[in-house]
């Protein structure tokens, strides 16, 4: 009789399999943790509190939180309809639209910023700024720069979400007399709430880290268009590495707090937490 039963061999094989996956994936986790530890080691609580004491940095925190929230809401407002249309309908030019929506994702963020800058120096852009509101180098440009990139992620997420929702319940609703709109509001959208949460969180997080387009399109003006990534850049540019790192860690803390909160709210009632 063999001392190695098929179950034991299988379990050993499974352990090896999981170890290999963990090793590969774990290297990335280790890299992230190593970066965080390196940042923490270079700064101190005194630098942290000195950074928070500066009114410019408090303003940057406020602007970052508010602008990211506005961007996330606006991203959902475009992400949901576009995601639904791309998932549920066929229309002329759908492939082109699909490709266009990838542009903000594949283009370097600096190019997005430059393109926005050029857009608002064109005659229609100038007319808008002279007659409606100032954009370039003012707060609306921060939101627009963030939105230009974040919305693309929201669209992708919502499309995948709607793709995964079985259209059958919607179709049943239609057979029971609902209009398309009623079916959307009463059936599809409630079913997509986790996707909404994910899209909103992703947009918010993406906006928080946006720097390149903001630097080009909004400038780096303290107490006006300075967001947290800009603060890191400004502190770094005057050699204040410790303050730059303190703000970087602050961004990490804020981002983690928001992500954990939204995920907790999203997973509540699922039995997973």
């Amino acid at each position: 009789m063999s001392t190695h039963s098929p179950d034991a061999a299988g379990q050993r094989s499974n352990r090896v399999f999981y170890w290999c996956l963990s090793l590969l994936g774990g290297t990335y986790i280790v890299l992230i943790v190593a970066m965080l530890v390196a940042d923490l080691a270079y700064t101190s609580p005194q630098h942290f509190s000195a950074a928070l004491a500066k009114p410019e940095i408090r303003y940057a925190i406020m602007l970052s939180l508010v602008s990211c929230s506005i961007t996330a809401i606006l991203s959902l407002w475009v992400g949901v309809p576009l995601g639904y249309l791309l998932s549920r309908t066929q229309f002329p030019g759908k492939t082109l639209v699909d490709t266009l929506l990838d542009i903000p994702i594949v283009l370097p963020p600096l190019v997005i910023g430059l393109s926005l800058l050029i857009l608002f120096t064109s005659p229609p852009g100038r007319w808008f700024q002279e007659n409606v509101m100032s954009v370039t180098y003012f707060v609306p440009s921060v939101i627009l720069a963030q939105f230009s990139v974040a919305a693309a992620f929201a669209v992708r997420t919502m499309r995948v979400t709607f793709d995964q929702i079985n259209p059958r319940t919607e179709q049943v609703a239609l057979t029971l007399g609902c209009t398309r709109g009623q079916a959307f509001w009463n059936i599809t959208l409630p079913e997509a709430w986790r996707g909404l949460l994910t899209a909103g969180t992703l947009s918010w997080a993406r906006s928080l880290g946006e720097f390149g387009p903001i630097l080009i399109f909004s400038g780096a003006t303290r107490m006006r268009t300075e967001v947290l990534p800009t603060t890191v850049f400004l502190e770094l540019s005057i050699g204040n590495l410790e303050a730059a790192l303190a703000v970087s860690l602050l961004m990490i803390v804020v981002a983690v707090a928001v992500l954990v909160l939204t995920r907790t709210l999203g997973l509540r009632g699922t039995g997973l937490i």
Partner: protein
Amino acid sequence: MNLAKTAFLGSIALLVGLSVLLYSQMAGDRGQVGPTLIVYCAEALRLPLEAIKLDFEKETRQPVELRYGSSQFILTQLDLNKDGDLFLPADDSYLTLAKQKDLIAEVLPLATMRPVVVTRPGFNKTIKSWNDVVAPGVKLGIANPEAAAIGKLVRDHLTKQGLWDAVTKQQPTFLGTVSDVGAAVQLGTIDVGVIWDAITKNYPKATVVEVPELKGITAQVPIAVTKRSAQPTQALRFARFAAAKDRGLEHLHKHGFQVADNADAWALTPKLDVYAGSMLRPAIEQTLDEFQKREGVRITTVYNGCGILVGQMKTGQRPDVYFSCDTQFMHQVRDLFGEPAVVSTNQLVIAVPKGNKHDLQTLKDLGKPGLKVGVGHEQQCALGAITKETFLKTGVYAAVQKNVKKYAPSGDLLIVDLRVGTLDAVVAYQSNVTPYAKEIDAIPVTGIPCAKPEQPLAIGRKTLHPQLAQRLEAALRSAESKRRFEALGFGWEVK
């Protein structure tokens, strides 16, 4: 209403609430005077400019926005955005580029900087010359020569010495700005970098090393007002503040910049006293007025015969600028002024009523019996002195003296007498006659060098505003000023 619609309406409410919060938190214009001045500023000048901006806003309540970047980057932004009021590159070579694009009006010098080599903490190799900097195994970082002033100046200087090829062979790291280089050296990601001496304080962990091959490179840091500025007076005010020895230059000096010795003292509305010969009045009045308005300064001009003006200066008056009718009067007060520069010439003429009924063609004709002649007072004005000299050199002095009925302190007063008919002929300047060409004929006095005097301009040695005075001089030597001088019959001597 179902949950989805409730959530949607909630998102609208949230959006409105966040927008209101943002609007209320944004820095407003409460108590501030005028639209914001936009300054495109090189990265290396960030710290002193932040301090200067705060002081300026406190003192004048004029809001200022600083936009930073490498020198080439801000030049591109300035050209693209068309909204900048001031341009502050790290070197005046970028001003040349900006002038080629016709972007720049006035320029004020601020400071100078020199590039130095810095080494990272723990770097244990000896650096004595540029060869050590580009030695194998040394990681060198330089700001991109295409974008940053320091990279460009170092590259150009080393190329002239035949040392740049060694740099490119070594394949250095090119970073976006000089601040990036400093940060990289401090962090230790590169061994050696080249940064401005003025910003070495920002990187206390780096070691500064003087390298002989970089000596001779000096960046002249200017601040320039743009031609597109919608508020040039306010822009000039900020530029004057930044360039003032008791304001902006104090901050620059504190941050390690070498500042100019002959800087202006700060005044919100500076005053300039200008002494000018009477004959220059019609040529320069408008230019002075435009300069006053644009700069936001007050100019007090004293027009008189140069003899009188020189007399006043000898008794203690000290104008900031003296524009003389003739070099001999400037010479009499040369110890009070810097090097004079000739701006114009003015032809001596015999002025007669239209028609020249006495048929006067030469100076000798002024001795015709019964003629009533007017000349300038030889001691009170350059006109008089030059006229006498001319009479003496042509040998007609005694003959003409018999007919001289009036000695005036200026040519303009002689023209008045001629026009009202109390004199038959006067010896004056062409510029005195040109405005009345319909009533008066002018016969030029030719063949005698002293009959075409030169008008030099000089700036007072003890003026509190030497740079402002230099800008005034530049305005008087400009193309528009030339047009005004020539329209009055002056010759133009500015090269």
